[in-house]
């Protein structure tokens, strides 16, 4: 169509946080070759430095202090640098910083202190950031793979331990299977609309709906397959089977990071594709998108199954895996609410707020599991929490904060996240799903508060030990959880500029 674009047309500056981190990650991989085996703290430190600089670069536009580049669109609309992508960047960079802190000592303990860990972690982070900024289905697909492939390797990082290898293989096979569905869905959407960029899709959908063209069926199947592919990534029922196995088998430091990062990426893509590209896909002439019913049904099933199966778990990592399935359900309520065009922006904001709250809380909870875990990956049962309050009062207090936040008790971040998601659902006239959400939160109190009970009211010999970087990570996560809960305007200020809509 057009000639070769010149470098200045690309608006490279708008992608500054991502392009900086991409260069940094490649350089780090080379630099790490010259760092001797015994001094990998240098690599870890350099990783933190890179993530820190990228975080500052992502926070500047969000705080309104600086705006890089010329407008939001870069690379001819492939990359969109708006408030939504800034929000995603901040969440995933904070998660990655905490992820490095929890990993450093853990890798020493399991004798897998290798530089590749940090490079792979940076590449995954990049994948999530690109996912949040995607303006085109090609970018969604490439970013999804950039996010997933390093995670497959990280899950198997503890080889030759069998559980770790097994979790990596399971994650890989199901992940590759899911991306097959995703990309088949994308191909059908391309067939129905003739374009792959979201703005073009939005315009084509407008036309298809107006003319009631037969390509709407192709689009419907495409959207469905895309939902299957991304549903696998965010662990929504019925595509959740891999989650408990992978979370239990993979090294805990990896799980702490990926339980949040993979969800951030998946939900960013869902909001971008469904909430912005296909929000006007209303077959019955109303304002409600055709995919909304499916999404809220999946959300309700995910919340119910996740919370009920979590009750019977006796292993902390499996329990938190089912809890993360349940939380995917709460976030899916937000995605479903984005299907009502007037509420789409509010719903996108709610999802970002929920993810921010979830990032601090969930990384913190897994960090506490790392503290009690033995070097041979045992002692992650619920009974390992017994007597923690006597031996490590601060650690137990932090874990209590995380559990309260996951339940959604007021004055914690989790409550604020749930509040905004339910509010968006009610605004979108999805009251039954919001009711299911509130009721399942009550059920979840049973298994979250049981952990608190074990820590404070049962006696036992806790063997928890908290080295320095891990202690920092847990305190940052705990402070973050409380701060966002007590000052909710921190979150609503961060997200109030998010608008996704194309057209009038």
């Amino acid at each position, binding site marked *: *169509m057009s000639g070769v674009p010149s470098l200045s047309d690309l608006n490279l500056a708008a992608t500054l946080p991502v392009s900086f981190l991409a260069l940094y990650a490649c350089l780090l991989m080379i630099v790490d070759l010259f760092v001797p085996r015994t001094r990998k703290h240098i690599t870890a430190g350099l990783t933190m430095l890179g993530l820190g600089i990228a975080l500052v670069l992502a926070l500047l536009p969000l705080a309104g202090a600086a705006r890089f580049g010329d407008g939001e669109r870069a690379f001819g609309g492939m990359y969109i640098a708006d408030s939504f992508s800034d929000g995603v960047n901040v969440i995933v960079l904070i998660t990655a910083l905490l992820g490095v802190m929890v990993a450093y000592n853990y890798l020493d303990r399991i004798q897998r202190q290798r530089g590749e860990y940090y490079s792979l972690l940076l590449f995954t982070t990049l994948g999530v950031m690109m996912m949040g900024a995607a303006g085109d*289905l*090609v970018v969604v*697909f*490439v970013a999804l*793979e950039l996010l997933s*492939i390093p995670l*497959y*390797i990280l899950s*198997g990082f503890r*080889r*030759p331990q*069998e*559980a770790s*290898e*097994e*979790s*990596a*293989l*399971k994650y*890989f*096979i199901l992940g*590759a*299977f899911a*991306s*097959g*569905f995703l*990309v*088949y869905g*994308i*191909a*059908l959407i*391309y*067939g129905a609309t*003739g*374009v*792959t960029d979201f703005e073009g899709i939005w315009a084509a959908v407008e036309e298809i709906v107006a003319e009631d063209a037969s390509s709407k069926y192709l689009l419907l199947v495409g959207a469905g397959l895309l939902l299957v592919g991304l549903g696998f990534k965010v662990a929504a029922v019925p595509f959740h089977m891999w989650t*408990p*196995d992978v979370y*239990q*088998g993979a090294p805990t430091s990896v799980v702490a990071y990926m339980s949040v990062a993979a969800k951030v990426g998946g939900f960013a893509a869902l909001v971008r594709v469904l909430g912005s590209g296909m929000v006007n896909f209303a077959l019955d002439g109303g304002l409600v998108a055709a995919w909304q019913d499916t999404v809220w049904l999946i959300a309700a099933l995910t919340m119910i199954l996740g919370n009920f*199966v979590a009750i019977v*778990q006796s292993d902390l990592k*499996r329990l938190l895996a089912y809890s993360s399935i349940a939380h995917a359900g709460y976030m899916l309520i937000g995605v479903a609410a984005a299907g009502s065009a007037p509420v789409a922006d509010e719903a996108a904001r709610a999802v970002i707020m929920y993810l921010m709250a979830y990032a601090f809380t969930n990384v913190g909870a897994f960090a506490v599991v790392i503290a009690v875990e033995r070097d041979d990956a045992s002692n992650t049962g619920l009974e390992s929490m017994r007597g923690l309050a006597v031996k490590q009062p601060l650690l137990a207090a932090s874990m209590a904060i995380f559990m309260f936040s996951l339940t959604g008790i007021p004055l914690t971040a989790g409550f604020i996240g749930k509040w905004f998601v339910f509010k968006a659902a009610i605004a979108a006239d999805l009251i039954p799903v919001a009711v299911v959400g509130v009721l399942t939160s009550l059920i979840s109190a049973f298994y979250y508060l049981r952990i608190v009970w074990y820590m404070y009211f049962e006696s036992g010999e806790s063997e928890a030990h908290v080295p320095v970087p891990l202690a920092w990570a847990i305190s940052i996560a705990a402070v973050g959880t409380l701060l966002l809960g007590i000052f909710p305007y921190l979150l609503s200020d961060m997200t109030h500029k998010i608008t996704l809509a194309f057209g009038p």
Partner: protein
Amino acid sequence: MVPLWMYLVVAAALFSTGLFGVLARRNAIAILMSIELMLNAVNINLVAFWRYNTPLDLSGQAFAVFVFVVAAAEVAVGLALIISIYRKRQSVIAEDVNMLKW
């Protein structure tokens, strides 16, 4: 000229073959090959849609290139994981890999 729907039928059949393979085969290598079949079905779709619907806009063709580059990267990681498991257990049968269960 061959009509578009014929290409789509071939692609759908290939995708279903791959799907069946992933669900039914026991050998991890065969599962990996079936996943490749699914991705190749996507490529047929993309190129057919490009040729018939938007022959002037190259995005469908470019997408197909992205798909097979990514597929190659995925296979590299997948085979490495399978080799690593084979060294430990002398088996690539997916059913033997069953330590983690609920």
